[in-house]
């Protein structure tokens, strides 16, 4: 049944120079611009229970994944890390570099936006650098107050082959390109007379998605990913903060917050049953909160999985087509079809609509927490199962703990 249009969102085309696109938002999908938010709750959780990067807080499983990677994945990941390391290192010190030009006093918002689009970023937006989303380990690192949110689309064709190594090449390859483009854009901002700090997509300074939503570049999907107009979640996101004079963009209601409740394809198709149908209030935001422990074991063993990205109609067909179809028919484009919902899961074969792979409980038993937490957990289990450890075993345990503490926790990861 056709729907009444509440409002039409106009956005720039997918690539620099493309015509603007119109996105009709149905009446029954209209909620709020951005995301339902309780500011006082967000501030409270940020102050009392601050977030930390998964690269630290979930270091144990991030180390474990290397033990279950296929040879091909292992080889590719090592190669990616070699390419990526200098880009991440350059981003880490980028905020300390002095401007190379002299400010003219004019507002540079549109100059930066244009340059970013020319470089190839598909979505560019400006907002306040909201420090409530910054990770504990990065709070002293973040320097400037204005955030430039930047999304770089990853290859369409390769992404549709998810889960696969080809899609992983697109995923990590996009990070490698993006890391270099961010440094170029930061150089440009310095040439305008301002500081620019690159927030790498591989050494995240905080949760970036809330600021992308605030800048009007999309809304949070039920799969936990930013759904932007042209490529949904098929993008790699990063930020640059600056002291340049810029104007902030406004959050937009694309209808996604409610559309995901109607669609639910990612929730229904998730191989690990990690996605949750109903929204909850989490740290001051109303969202579908994914269950990390059900996601990670599948991601690690099945080429990065990302079925939730593959089956999202907004990723596959683009927001204009999906929303136009919803207005015209009241239906979700592609829902229930092999085209959208089918996927092949390595040796397990093909799963069509309504079919899911099965995993036993052991499959989901992976290391948890920080490296030292996991070591202590193993020590406790050994103590309970095998009795008091020998002097040598105690010494080995102490050496391992010391090694972890001396080495410190790295904030650098792959997401």
């Amino acid at each position, binding site marked *: 049944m056709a729907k009444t249009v509440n409002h039409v969102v106009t956005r720039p085309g997918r690539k620099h120079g493309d015509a603007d696109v119109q996105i009709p938002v149905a009446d029954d999908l209209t909620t709020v611009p951005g995301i339902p938010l309780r500011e006082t709750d967000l501030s409270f959780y940020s102050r009392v229970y601050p977030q930390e990067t998964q690269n630290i807080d979930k270091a144990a499983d991030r180390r474990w994944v290397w033990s279950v990677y296929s040879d091909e994945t292992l080889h590719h990941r090592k190669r990616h890390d070699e390419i990526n390391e200098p880009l991440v290192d350059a981003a880490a010190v980028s905020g300390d570099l002095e401007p190379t030009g002299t400010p003219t006093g004019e507002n540079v918002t549109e100059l930066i936006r244009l340059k970013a689009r020319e470089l190839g970023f598909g979505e560019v937006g400006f907002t306040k650098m909201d420090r409530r989303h910054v990770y504990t380990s990065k709070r002293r690192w973040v320097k400037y107050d204005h955030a430039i949110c930047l999304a770089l689309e990853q*290859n*369409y*064709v390769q992404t*549709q082959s998810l889960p696969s190594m080809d899609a992983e090449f697109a995923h990590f390859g996009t990070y490698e390109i993006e890391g270099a483009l961010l440094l170029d854009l930061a150089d440009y901002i310095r040439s305008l007379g301002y500081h620019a700090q690159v927030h790498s997509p591989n050494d995240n300074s905080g949760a970036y998605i809330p600021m992308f939503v605030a800048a009007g570049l999309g809304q949070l999907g039920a799969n936990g990913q930013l759904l932007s107009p042209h490529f949904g979640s098929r993008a790699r996101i990063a930020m640059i903060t600056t002291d340049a004079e810029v104007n902030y963009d406004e959050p937009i209601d694309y209808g996604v917050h409610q559309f995901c409740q109607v669609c639910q394809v990612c929730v229904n198709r998730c191989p690990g049953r990690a996605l949750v149908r109903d929204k909850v209030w989490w740290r001051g935001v109303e969202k579908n909160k994914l269950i990390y422990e059900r996601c990670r074991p599948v991601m690690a063993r099945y080429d990065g999985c990302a079925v939730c990205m593959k089956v999202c*109609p907004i990723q*596959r*067909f*683009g927001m204009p*087509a999906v929303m136009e*179809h919803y207005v*015209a*028919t009241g*239906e979700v*484009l*592609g829902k*229930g*079809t*092999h*085209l*959208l919902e*089918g996927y092949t899961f390595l040796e397990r074969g*093909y799963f*069509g609509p309504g079919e899911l792979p099965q995993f036993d409980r052991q499959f989901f038993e992976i290391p948890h927490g920080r490296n030292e937490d996991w070591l202590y957990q193993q020590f406790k289990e050994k103590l309970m199962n095998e009795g008091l450890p020998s002097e040598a075993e105690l010494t080995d345990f102490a050496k391992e703990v010391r090694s972890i503490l001396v080495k410190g926790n790295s904030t650098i990861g792959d997401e």
Partner: protein
Amino acid sequence: MFEKTQIEALFGELEHEWRGKPDFEKLSRDAHLGIAYWDAGRPLTKVDPRVVALIEKHKPKG
């Protein structure tokens, strides 16, 4: 509805004909959109004619 084998046959032909050529990505996007529209019973007026021809060739019979 397009079944897995029909989808694979269509994309197989599209790849064979167009991979490596400038239009390949655009045609791939249109092929996904076109099949979804066909499955939904919508007109294919916004889809590239070359993709429409492929859909006509590989669509479910009957």
